[in-house]
């Protein structure tokens, strides 16, 4: 059964289209990843699914409820960890969780047990009486995940859960998230712009400029790239490019002075290539397909460079729009 169904969802902020006619389904008990650069429309989609925003048009169903028509039922069925912390720093970890339990009408007799259970699960039980302002970034994130689980939601939304964490806490958090569907019978819907993190997902949708440009399992998506990527730096890129194209028929592209092409068997391809273009070769490297290559292949740009250039302005214009309205 699909626990999330999104049909032709559109969200416009003034004349900016943040989400442009997207449709997808998420199966129950899976980890679904929404992958794309900042400003691609990920958070807007999450906010619509969480009933914080109304879409311009289209339909979204979560746990069988319409996000527009039955927001209260949707809210009961979901837990959310936002991009920015939403804990009360002046309250203790325990108080934050009890606050949440009351808001979600958890039966009083179960409240204490449930709060202690999730605290144990995220390994914060012995810090439960400390105020949250004493917590590190990773601990806060874990506490927020714990909070999102107290009312036993059917879907847990994680918006960029590892943003701002150091690599070690990031890894810990991912191991922890990967266990959630089994241990808590919950479906995970998460967004990230770290491609390596999307590997834990059962299915991924890649979103760019408000449109979904591909969906599939991580392996299926990597097949889009069509094999390994070979990067070659030469002393004469123009001629080397021509020679490789003539002898191997590859589609050779150039980026930052480096030629790159995809071939099914990179290991055997490289020696042949070196024999062909000979002394021009300066450096060679081989990359097994990653999701970054998928993104590169689909959009013609790396996900990280997008992060620095265009998107800032889109986010800014959305914020400016929302300030005016």
């Amino acid at each position, binding site marked *: 059964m699909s626990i999330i169904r999104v049909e032709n969802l559109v969200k416009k902020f003034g004349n900016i289209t943040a989400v442009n006619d997207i449709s997808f389904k998420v199966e129950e008990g899976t980890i679904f990843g929404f992958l794309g650069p900042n400003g691609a429309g990920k958070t807007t989609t999450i906010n619509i699914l969480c009933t914080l*925003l109304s879409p311009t048009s289209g339909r979204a169903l979560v746990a069988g409820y319409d996000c527009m028509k039955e927001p209260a039922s949707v809210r009961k069925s979901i837990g959310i960890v936002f991009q*920015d912390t939403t804990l009360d720093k002046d309250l203790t970890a325990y108080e934050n969780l009890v*606050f949440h339990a009351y808001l979600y009408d958890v039966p009083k007799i179960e409240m204490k047990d449930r709060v202690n259970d999730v605290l144990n699960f995220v390994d914060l039980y012995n810090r439960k009486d400390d105020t949250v302002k004493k917590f590190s970034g990773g601990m806060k994130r874990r506490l927020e995940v714990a909070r999102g689980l107290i009312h036993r939601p059917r879907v847990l939304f994680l918006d960029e859960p590892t943003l701002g964490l150091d690599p070690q806490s990031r890894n810990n958090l991912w191991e922890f998230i990967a266990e959630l569907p089994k241990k808590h019978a919950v479906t995970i819907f998460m967004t990230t712009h770290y491609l390596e993190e999307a590997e834990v997902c059962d299915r991924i949708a890649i979103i760019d400029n408000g449109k979904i440009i591909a969906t599939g399992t991580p392996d299926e998506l990597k097949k889009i790239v069509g094999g390994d990527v070979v990067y070659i730096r030469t002393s004469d890129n123009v001629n080397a490019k021509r020679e490789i194209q003539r002898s191997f028929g590859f589609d050779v592209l150039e980026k930052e002075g480096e030629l790159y092409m995809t071939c099914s068997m990179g290991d055997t391809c490289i020696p042949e290539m070196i024999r062909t273009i000979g002394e021009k070769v300066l450096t060679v490297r081989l990359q097994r397909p990653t999701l970054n290559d998928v993104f590169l292949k689909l959009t013609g740009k790396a996900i990280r460079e997008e992060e620095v250039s265009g998107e800032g302005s889109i986010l800014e214009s959305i914020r400016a729009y929302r300030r005016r309205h």
Partner: protein
Amino acid sequence: MEFNAIYVIVARELKKFLREKSRLFSAIARPLLWLFIVGAGISRLVPRDTGMPYTQFIFPGIIGMTILFSSMFSSISIIWDKEFGFMKEILVAPVSRTSIVVGKALSGTIVSTIQASVILALFPFLGFQLSLIQIMLVLLICVSVSFCISSFGIVLATFYESYESFSVIMNFIIMPMFFLSGAMYPVKLLPDILKIVAQLNPLTYGIDALKHAIFPDGMGQMSPDFSLLSCASVIIGTSLVFVFVASRSFERKG
């Protein structure tokens, strides 16, 4: 309305209030200053034959001032919650917007009533003799006026995102509300234009109700300006309007 949600919103606010003891002291310092310094100074200018000493006349107004400041500033918690993201935690919960507004307004009500009671406890020093019934009535009025002004503060707070802009607008609104409320001088003595503005100010009716309770046989210029019934209806009516408007304005935007 979800009573568990209202309960926990109030409990959180009170817990935070009790942890910040300095807030209580600073909130009480202001009315004391007005009562014993400004009041004592102005009383020298006021003729003695107006019915009662000026420091007694402003007593209901100073209780009203305590409520005004404390209720309006309690709505700042909404701005902080927005700024630190906690508001999102509340807004995505399966809780009606009315419950959120009522919870926040009740928090403001309790905090304001506590502070107003501290000021009220000074009545023997001002030469008043209040019966137990009068004291109960004053407390009841304090609760209703605090709820009314707190929900008004919440209406304002729903429109602002940052502390800076909100505190500017607060200072811009609070002082005129105080001076045009009959706290320092009877509304009936005001020039016509100011009288109209004072009549649009819900605090005017709150302070007038307090005057009814504290000096029921006030005479002449110092007597209350409106009937107790009209005061009660205005306070209850505007409270309902403020709660309604604030709930609507909390609904999802965009």
